[in-house]
């Protein structure tokens, strides 16, 4: 395409894009089309411009492969990516996430009984959030080997502290009025814990779960940079990037992104079902 023609086409496309997104953004927010359609259309336009611009300007595929190229790589190496997904998401991330969160929650409930331990652990747990815990990855790879066990161990360490801090905060959230009411019913420690304090703590727990779902993906993928068997999303990304096979690299990133969003979305869905009474969910529903 010649220069001026290309410029005119691009400007026209841009005008159509801006106009259509603006039109959709003006739709009532309560309507599904306005709420979900707008970002979706925006994303589609970004993809279209990405495709057109990379082709029009002959952007080298090492720099930025066109979406169509990434799509082809995704389809062509579906089998490889599926085994990577199985290795990284279904083993390292899920097992590590469940173990780390369960441990953080259990330790939180235990520590909660002793104000002394609470005062000792909380500052240390809060400090852990400023420390790049990802650095333990090489140690875990040494201890537990190249397979998913070492990655799950990294995920456990990374997810433990946010869950501990949030569990403690959540357990402290129930007020004196409610606790006194439970006492007047003759409820013991466990009854109060199960019927009052844990339900009240749930919004905090879910917040930690959602933060942890992202942390877990990061931990598992970065830990694979330190050594892994010949599968795994992090392994795929780093080896294919070294071979400058960018289509497959971006496809692996797409899989990781989709898996991360799916996990997050799933947790958000469960949260809305489990804590339907909370103001943040009530008002927006």
């Amino acid at each position, binding site marked *: 395409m010649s220069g001026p023609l290309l410029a005119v086409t691009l400007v026209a496309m841009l005008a159509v894009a801006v106009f259509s*997104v*603006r039109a*959709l*953004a003006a739709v009532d*927010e309560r309507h599904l089309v306005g*709420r*979900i359609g707008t*970002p*979706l259309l925006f*994303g589609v336009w970004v993809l279209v411009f990405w495709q057109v611009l990379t082709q029009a300007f002959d952007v080298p595929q090492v720099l930025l492969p066109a979406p169509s190229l990434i799509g082809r790589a995704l389809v062509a190496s579906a089998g490889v990516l599926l085994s990577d997904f199985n290795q990284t998401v279904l083993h390292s991330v899920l097992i590590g996430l469940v173990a780390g969160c369960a441990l953080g929650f259990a330790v939180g409930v235990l520590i909660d009984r002793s104000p*002394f331990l*609470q*005062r*000792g*652990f*909380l500052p240390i*747990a*809060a400090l852990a*959030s*400023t420390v*790049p815990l*990802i*650095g*333990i990855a*090489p*140690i875990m*790879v*040494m201890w537990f080997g190249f397979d998913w066990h070492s990655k799950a161990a990294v995920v456990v360490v990374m997810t433990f*502290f946010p869950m501990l*801090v*949030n569990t403690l*905060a*959540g357990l402290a*959230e129930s007020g004196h009025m409610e606790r006194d009411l439970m006492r007047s019913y003759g409820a013991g420690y466990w009854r109060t814990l199960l019927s009052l304090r844990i339900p009240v703590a749930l*919004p*905090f727990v879910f*917040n930690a779960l959602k*933060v942890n779902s*992202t942390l877990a993906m*990061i931990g598992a993928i*970065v830990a694979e940079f*330190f050594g892994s068997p010949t599968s795994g999303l992090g392994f795929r*990304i*780093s080896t294919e*990037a*070294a071979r400058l096979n960018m289509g497959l*690299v971006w496809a*692996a*990133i797409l899989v990781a*992104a989709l898996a*991360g*969003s799916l996990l*997050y*979305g799933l947790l*958000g*869905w469960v*949260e809305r079902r489990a804590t339907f009474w909370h*103001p*943040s969910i009530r008002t*927006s529903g």
Partner: protein
Amino acid sequence: MASTEAAARGAEAPPTGDNPARPAAHRARSAPAAPKPTLWQHIGPIAAVLAILLVVWYATAVALNASQVIERTLSSQPGWGFADLVRLTLTMDRPVLPAPHQIALDLFDSVFGWPLDSPRNLLFHAAVTSSATLLGFAMGTALGALLAVAIVHSRTLERSLFPWVIASQTVPVLAIAPIVIVILGSLGLTGVFPKAIISMYLCFFPVAVALVKGLRSPGVLELELLHTYAASRAHTFWKLRVPASLPFLFPSLRVGIAAGLVGAIVGELPTGAQAGLGARLLTGSYYGNTVQIWSALVMSALLGLALTSAVALAERLLTPGGRR
């Protein structure tokens, strides 16, 4: 797109806001201690827990290193006792788990035993990493602020772009670290800049989300008051919205700089960088030098603490009346 909806709600959920750990911890700590605790009541429990952790660490070190020590040295000399085992496990060259004093000695040695510009000095590596972190932090804060201002002022952008900003957080951002490094390397960019880009990507999100929330925090009353003053949009922005957003901004800056440090460290992994704490971790893991890994780890923890406390200090200086 359900995920972005959930993400939006998660980021704005009242109990903990965009940084669940910190405000939550703050509240929980202040809630049970009704009378103001003395200094000893603050430090005592922490010291006790630290002491317990130290004892557990030593015990674990002995237990984990025992099999190697027995196999290598003790099996050749019959009649060894428990004291020999403990002594040898805590002085191994390449232990499975080094004892705390070994790490401390290695750290001390590297910091004071070599000149500051020597690659054997950990402070040199810390400086390399923190320069990338700070550059990335500055760029990420600028980008986040720009996005937030645009989003607050344009309804179209808010509806179309903001969900993607939030969705970008559910993506394992560090996965793109190797590509960013490769791409920028093929453009001839090496050194601090590629690492700073990764830091930036990790920093911009908390800043953007918190600033959008902060710039929106003035209520109808305040906005209408400024309206009666015939204040322009720019005036409203600088005199009302920006000051109101500061309490939201600083906690997110603390999160941002901690995330930026992680980004810089991970950015040093795929290039096989010569300098930086991430490079130390990588060479340590190549050569099985566990003490080196641990001391690099401790150094990055200290760096993380220093950076976040610097932000906390700036917060105390810039927001009169202290934190929220």
